[in-house]
C-alpha cells in the first residue's frame, strides 16, 4: 500500500462528495427508470378511475412482439436506415475531408459552412426538408422540373420515402463525419507521406496503403458513434413522414413512441423498449470489440 504513489486528494470524504451528484443523477434517472421499464414490461397497465391497474402477464408482452408487423418493419427499416445513412455519410465525409485538407485557402470557411447542419435541431432539419421535398412548391421538384423530369411525391410514395429520409440524414450528419475525419487527417504524421512520395507512390497507393490504415481508429470511432445515433433516429421521421406511407419509414424509436404514448400500451411499449435496449447493447459490444481489434491491427 505504501508503494502506491500518493495521488492528490485521496481522502474518502471528498472522493465521495464530488462523485455522488453524478452518481445519484445516474442512479435516479437511468438505473431506476430502466428497472421500472423492465418491471412494467411484465404487466398490462390500464387506467380505471384515474388509477393504474396492473395485471401481470408474464412474458406475454415479449411473445407478442414477434407477431407485431409494425415492430418488424421498424427493426428492418432501422437497420436499412442506419447502414445506408451511416455508410453514405462516412464515404462522403471522408471524400470531403480529403479534399479539404489538401486546399491551402478557404479551409476555415468550408469548415464553418459544414458545421452548420450539425447544430440545427433534428426537428428543424425535418421542417427544412419537408418544405424542400414538397410536391407542389419544393425546391427539389422545381429543380428537376427545370431539367425536364416530372415532379415526384418524395415522402408520400412508399418506394422513395425511406430513401428520402436516408438522404436527409446524410445531409444532416455528413458534416459531422467530415469534421472528425478532417481532425484525424490533420493529426497524421507528415513524414510517412514524404517517405511514400519519395518511393513514388501514386495518389491511390498513398490513400490505400498510408492514409486508410492510419485513419482506421478514427474511422472506427466515427462509425460506432454515428451508428449509435442513427439507431435512435426519431425527430426527422416524426416530422417528415410519421413512419408512413404505410410502414415505409417506420423506425424503432417511432414504433416505441406509437405503442407507448399514442396507443398508451405502457407494458407492451416497455417490453419493446427493453428489447431495443438489449439489441443496442449487443451492437455496442460488437462495436467496442471491433474497435479494439482495429486498434490492435493499427
Amino acid at each position, binding site marked *: 500500500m505504501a508503494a502506491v504513489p500518493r*495521488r*492528490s*486528494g*485521496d*481522502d474518502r470524504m471528498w*472522493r465521495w462528495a*464530488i*462523485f455522488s*451528484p*453524478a*452518481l445519484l*443523477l445516474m442512479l435516479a*434517472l*437511468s438505473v431506476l*427508470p430502466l428497472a421500472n*421499464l423492465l418491471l*412494467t414490461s411484465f404487466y398490462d397497465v390500464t387506467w380505471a378511475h384515474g388509477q393504474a391497474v396492473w395485471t401481470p402477464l408474464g412474458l406475454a408482452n415479449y411473445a407478442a412482439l414477434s407477431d407485431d408487423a409494425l415492430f418488424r418493419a421498424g427493426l428492418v427499416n432501422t437497420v436499412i436506415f442506419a447502414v445506408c445513412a451511416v455508410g453514405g455519410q462516412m464515404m462522403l465525409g471522408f471524400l*470531403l475531408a480529403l*479534399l479539404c485538407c*489538401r*486546399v*491551402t485557402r478557404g479551409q476555415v470557411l468550408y*469548415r*464553418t*459552412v*459544414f*458545421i*452548420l447542419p*450539425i*447544430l*440545427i*435541431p*433534428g426537428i428543424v432539419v*425535418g*421542417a*427544412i426538408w419537408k*418544405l*424542400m421535398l414538397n410536391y*407542389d*412548391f419544393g*425546391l427539389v421538384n422545381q429543380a428537376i422540373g427545370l431539367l425536364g423530369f416530372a415532379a415526384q411525391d418524395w415522402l408520400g410514395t412508399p418506394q422513395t420515402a425511406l430513401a428520402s429520409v436516408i438522404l436527409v440524414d446524410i*445531409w444532416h450528419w455528413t458534416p459531422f463525419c467530415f469534421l*472528425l475525419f478532417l*481532425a484525424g487527417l490533420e*493529426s497524421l504524421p507528415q513524414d510517412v507521406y514524404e517517405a511514400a512520395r519519395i518511393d513514388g507512390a501514386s495518389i491511390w497507393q498513398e490513400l490505400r496503403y498510408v492514409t486508410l490504415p492510419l485513419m482506421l481508429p478514427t474511422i472506427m470511432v466515427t462509425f460506432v458513434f454515428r451508428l*449509435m445515433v442513427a439507431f*435512435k433516429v*426519431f425527430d426527422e421521421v*416524426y*416530422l417528415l413522414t410519421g413512419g408512413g406511407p404505410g410502414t415505409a419509414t417506420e423506425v424503432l*424509436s417511432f414504433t416505441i*413512441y406509437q405503442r*407507448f*404514448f399514442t396507443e398508451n400500451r405502457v407494458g407492451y411499449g*416497455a417490453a419493446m*423498449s427493453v428489447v*431495443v435496449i438489449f439489441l*443496442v447493447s449487443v*451492437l*455496442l459490444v460488437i462495436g467496442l470489440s471491433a474497435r479494439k481489434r482495429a486498434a490492435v491491427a493499427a
Partner: protein
Amino acid sequence: MRMPAAFRRRGVANHAALIAASAIVVVPVVWVVAAGFRTQISLLMGAFWFTPILANFNEVLFSKTSDFLVNYRNSLVVGLTSTALCLVTATLAAWSLHRMRWPGWVVHVFLGWALVFHMIPPIALAGAWFTMARAVGLDSTLLSLVLAHTVLNLPMALWLMGVYVRDVPVELEEAARLDGASTPTLLWRIVVPIIAPGLAAAAVLSFVFSWNEFAVALNLTIKATATVPVAIAKFAQDYEIRYTQMAASAALSILPALVLLLIAQRYIVKGLTQGAVK
C-alpha cells in the same frame, strides 16, 4: 514559388467539389429562411423573386394564438440550467474518478454504464421518466425536462471532461496539496483554470443538444412548458400546414446555433472531435 500546372488544376477541382458541397449544405437553409419572408401564395406559386414581408415573423412572435416566445424562453431556461448542472456534476465526477483513488471496477462500471446509457434511444426512457415525474409531482414542469436533459448529456460531458482532467499535470496538483490546499481550493484554483477550454466545449455542446432535443421534450411537456422543437413539430401536424410560419419559426430556432457558430466555433470543433482523435 510557382506551383506545377497539374497541382494547380487539382487545386481548382478540389475547390469546385467543396463549393458544390457547401452549396448543398447552405441552399436548403437559405431557401427555408427566405420562405419565412414570403407570403404563402408566393411560396406556393414557386416564384423565384418575391418582396420580403415580416408578417410571418410578426405572427409567430406576437400573435395571441402563438406561444413561440414562451417556447423560446422555456428552451433557454432548460438549455442553460441543464448545461450548468451537467457541467458541474460531470466535471466533479470526472475528476474524482480519474484523479482520486477509486477501485478500478468503480470507474469502469460507471463509465461503461454511461456509454450504454448514451446508446439507449431517449424515447425508450421518456415513458418511465414521465411516470416518475408524476409520482413526485413534477410532471409537465420545466424541472423534469431540465433533469432529463442533464442526464442525457451527462455521458458526453463525462467523456469530454475526462479527456481534459487527465491532461492536468499530476505534479501541479501535488504541489498545491503540499502547500496545504484543500480539495475545493485545489479544484477551483488549479484544475478549473486548466480545463477551462474543455468546460467551454462541453458547455456549448450540452446547450446545443438540449436546445435541439425533441423526443423527450415532446413527452415531458405540456402547452405551457413546451420547448421550441415541440412548437415547430406542431406546425407540421396541423390539418392545413402554415408553411411560411413554419419556415419563420425554423429560422428563429437556428439563431442561437448561428451565434454559437460565429463566436464559439473553436469549442464546437474541439468538443466534437476531442474524443474521436485522442
